[in-house]
């Protein structure tokens, strides 16, 4: 209904013969682009639009302090880091072997990769004591054993969920230097315990459907005498 019935504009009206050289000359392109028609419509000159009025910037006071030497401004850096590339062998439901940290050697179920690049992982807690946890991909071996995670919803977990709670700053008093205050034990909020339960209930059902898988996940991985890790197929 609108008068504009133009199809999507091609990329360029000037086909490339060789990189840097188009088929048509400047005057031919002037004709092809129809600049003559635009000028004719506008009385012999190209149409000119007055610049939009800029909103008035607030009047800035002159600063009361100028630095003695010229201060160099750092260059603009708009680089945004992408999350680490996930190895092809690691897909949701893969059993991973943790290689470092408190839970080294534990076999654990992979849930998803968080926006920071870290892997979200769970024991499940009832089977081997590993809670919902973040783990770096470099400290993990991906096995080829997969668990069915279709019944688990992990949308609510992201990096903010695992952030440490900001502690209120205590003002230093002289007396406190010599007293060793017992720090209050950090209790896990009930919400996190419930999250663990909901995630694990679906997982445990899937795990128990496969024979021996539960004891497999409950056991730790270790190298035995004569075992060569570079020859092992995981």
């Amino acid at each position: 209904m609108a008068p504009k019935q133009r199809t999507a504009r091609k990329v360029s009206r000037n086909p490339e013969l060789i990189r840097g050289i188009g088929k048509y000359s400047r005057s031919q392109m002037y004709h092809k682009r129809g600049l003559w028609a635009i000028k004719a419509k506008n009385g012999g000159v190209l149409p000119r639009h007055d610049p939009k009025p800029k909103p008035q910037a607030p009047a800035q006071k002159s600063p009361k302090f100028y630095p003695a030497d010229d201060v160099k401004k750092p260059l603009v850096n708009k680089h945004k880091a992408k999350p680490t590339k996930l190895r092809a062998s690691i897909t949701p439901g893969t059993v991973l072997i943790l290689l470092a940290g408190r839970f080294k050697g534990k076999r654990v179920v992979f849930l998803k990769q968080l926006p920071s690049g870290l892997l979200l992982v769970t024991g499940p807690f009832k089977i081997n004591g590993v809670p919902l946890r973040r783990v770096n991909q470099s400290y993990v071996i991906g096995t080829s054993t997969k668990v069915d995670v279709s019944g688990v919803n992990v949308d609510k977990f992201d990096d903010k969920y695992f952030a440490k709670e900001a502690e209120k700053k205590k003002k230093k008093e002289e007396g406190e230097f010599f007293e060793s205050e017992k720090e209050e034990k950090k209790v896990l909020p009930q919400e996190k315990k419930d999250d663990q339960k909901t995630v694990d209930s679906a997982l445990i059902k899937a795990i128990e459907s496969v024979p021996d898988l539960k004891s497999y996940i409950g056991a730790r991985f270790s190298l035995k005498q004569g075992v060569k890790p570079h020859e092992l197929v995981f």
Partner: protein
Amino acid sequence: MPFKRFVEIGRVALVNYGKEHGRLVVIVDVIDQNRALVDAPDMVRSQVNFKRLSLTDLKVDIKRVPRKKELIKAMEDADVKNKWEKSSWGRKLIVKKTRANLNDFDRFKLMLVKIKKAAVVRQELAKLKKAA
């Protein structure tokens, strides 16, 4: 101790070194003192040093340098594949291969089975000791 396995046209051999390691081939011709012309159903006919071959007990009835189709037919008539997989040498190779390709989970299950088997054996041994 006379020799029992000879290099002859039709002798089935196992390549034990190089790119074709582990492949069963048939000696189709002898080139010179050191090399044989060798062929298999899924391989381009090529020369191989005798030092890279381990002779097997199996033999196929072919003429010198047969066509591929004739070679395949002769191998099927001699039933090379089945005989090889049933022979103790062939079975050992298959076991080695499966063991090398065991998953971490498979190794765990294997360990459980070994423990069970050892427990049964120990029980029986205890019974025998008690009887004696």
